[in-house]
């Protein structure tokens, strides 16, 4: 291969870069196009689901969303559920992450594995097992069951995000506070907590989004009277295809753009992803 004439080598170089560009474009289009199509369709004026693109535009599907009590009830349940489980899992997760990051102690690896493990357990298994467990301990209230499930699936994310931000905090700062006479809880509240704030906020944000969008766990743990918004949407999508869901999706997309914008302002997108040694 070393004796290849330079012209063949250049041709290969050209092909490789063409393939790279093609794949890059394909992957960006693949990710963006569906979102664009559904946003455009959500403003469709037709009563039925017609071919793309629509000829006339209106806000009828947004009105139909607001007129449907099932969606609004679902939205309220989802918001209450997401707020409550986020608070619980953020407090429990951030406190645990602080101890896990505080140096080497006996049993640390096991505890860390326990806290991150819900991430690796399929969500159906979590929903199914909690349903069986809840009826075994006589808990039949759907909202309580939903909280139980959502706390479990969100904890690993709050632990991880807090751990990541704690790694950057120098231990000497905490030790300085303690050597100056602060009790450990004071050092925790006044030194560690403010420094770990971005990680805790990022973890809480992820927990909220995850809980708000969860389907598998909620499908097992909800009942006909207490339904979350995603469950109501899935039921609608499976029953009849109309464009109300497109309107909801567009609202979701808009909220997502706001979240990304907020993340970029608050933390910087570079910091959210890139922690590598050699960035471009």
């Amino acid at each position, binding site marked *: 291969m070393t004796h290849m004439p330079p012209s063949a080598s250049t041709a*290969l170089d050209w092909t490789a870069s063409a393939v790279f560009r093609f794949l*890059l474009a394909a992957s960006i289009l*693949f990710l963006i196009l569906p979102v664009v199509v559904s946003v455009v369709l959500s403003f469709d004026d037709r009563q039925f689901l017609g071919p793309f693109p629509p000829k006339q535009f209106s806000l009828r599907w947004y009105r139909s969303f607001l007129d449907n009590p099932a969606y609004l009830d679902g939205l309220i349940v989802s918001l209450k559920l997401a707020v409550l489980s986020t608070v619980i899992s953020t407090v429990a997760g951030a406190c645990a992450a602080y101890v896990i990051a505080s140096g080497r102690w006996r049993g640390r690896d096991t505890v860390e594995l326990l806290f991150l493990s819900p991430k690796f357990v399929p969500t159906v298994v979590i929903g199914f*097992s909690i349903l069986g467990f809840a009826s075994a301990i006589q808990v039949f209230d759907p909202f309580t069951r939903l909280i139980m499930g959502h706390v479990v699936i969100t904890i690993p994310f709050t632990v991880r995000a807090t751990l990541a931000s704690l790694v950057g905090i120098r231990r000497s700062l905490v030790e300085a506070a303690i050597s100056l006479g602060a009790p450990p809880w004071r050092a925790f509240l006044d030194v560690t907590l403010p420094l770990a704030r971005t990680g805790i906020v990022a973890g809480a944000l992820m927990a909220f989004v995850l809980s708000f969008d969860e389907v598998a766990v909620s499908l097992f743990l909800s009942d006909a009277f207490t339904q979350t918004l995603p469950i109501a949407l899935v039921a609608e999508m499976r029953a009849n295809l109309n464009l109300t869901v497109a309107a909801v999706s567009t609202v979701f997309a808009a909220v997502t753009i706001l979240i990304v914008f907020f993340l970029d302002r608050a933390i910087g997108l570079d910091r959210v992803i890139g922690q590598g040694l050699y960035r471009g």
Partner: protein
Amino acid sequence: MRQPRLSAFQCALLAPGAILLAVLLVAPIALMAVESFRPFVGGRVGAGAGWTLRNYTELIEPAYAFYFYDTFRIGFIVSAIALLLATPLAWQAARTKRRAVRVSIFGLLIGLLFMSLVARLYAIQMTWGTNGPLAFFGTLIGVPARSAGYAAIQVAIGLLHFVVPMSAIILIGTFQNISPRLEEAAASLGAPRWRVALTVTLPLAAPGLLSAFMIAFAMCISNFVVPLILGRGVVLFTTNLMYVRFSDVANFPSGAAIGVIMFALAGFVIYFMTQLVRWVSPEAQS
């Protein structure tokens, strides 16, 4: 060196989370494992008395084993394509000199992670489904959008949309940790770019590519929503089978057996992955 014990204050901080997980994760899964060995009594909620292996042996029958096969087959193909689509995206984000390009790709990936999967799946149905502007793709590959076989294609597309952003984010970390100096050195010694990519970058990125593939695979086979919405009832994953066993037939012990197998499989994939990464790059463990 003996490792120190925790102080009372540290134990108090650890307690809430540890108790929550013991009660809400460990205990339910243990109970599920016990239930999976109970016989199924029709017309009754919960399990019967006595012990049996029937819930496991019936899963080996071809009718059920097929669901496992289908889940793994689609998961494998999707993870492979996901690597193909995520690599250029991650490479561009990690190596570009322009901040605007990098931040746009980051924004796209993070936005997709935060955007509701239900909404994205709906968008995919609108775009790739029977009436959608991209439905011709099915005819192109010989599986028309109206045919039953297209359900599997749609499930694959939905899973891809789910795992490509995750894979790309993992790979961005991988590429950022490969020094551009090595590539520059190889290039300055006269190696053409395709050779640099093949003989310098690829081996260095191998552990990252492998773990991205395995994480994508684990996420695909444990997914529930994508086949539920896009599978049209034709494509059922093991996860969906578990839900059907429980919701339609009220066969709790059988669902529990599937749950135990999926739990074990998830554990195996994670273990296999860490071993594989360790084997490919022993120095990464330090």
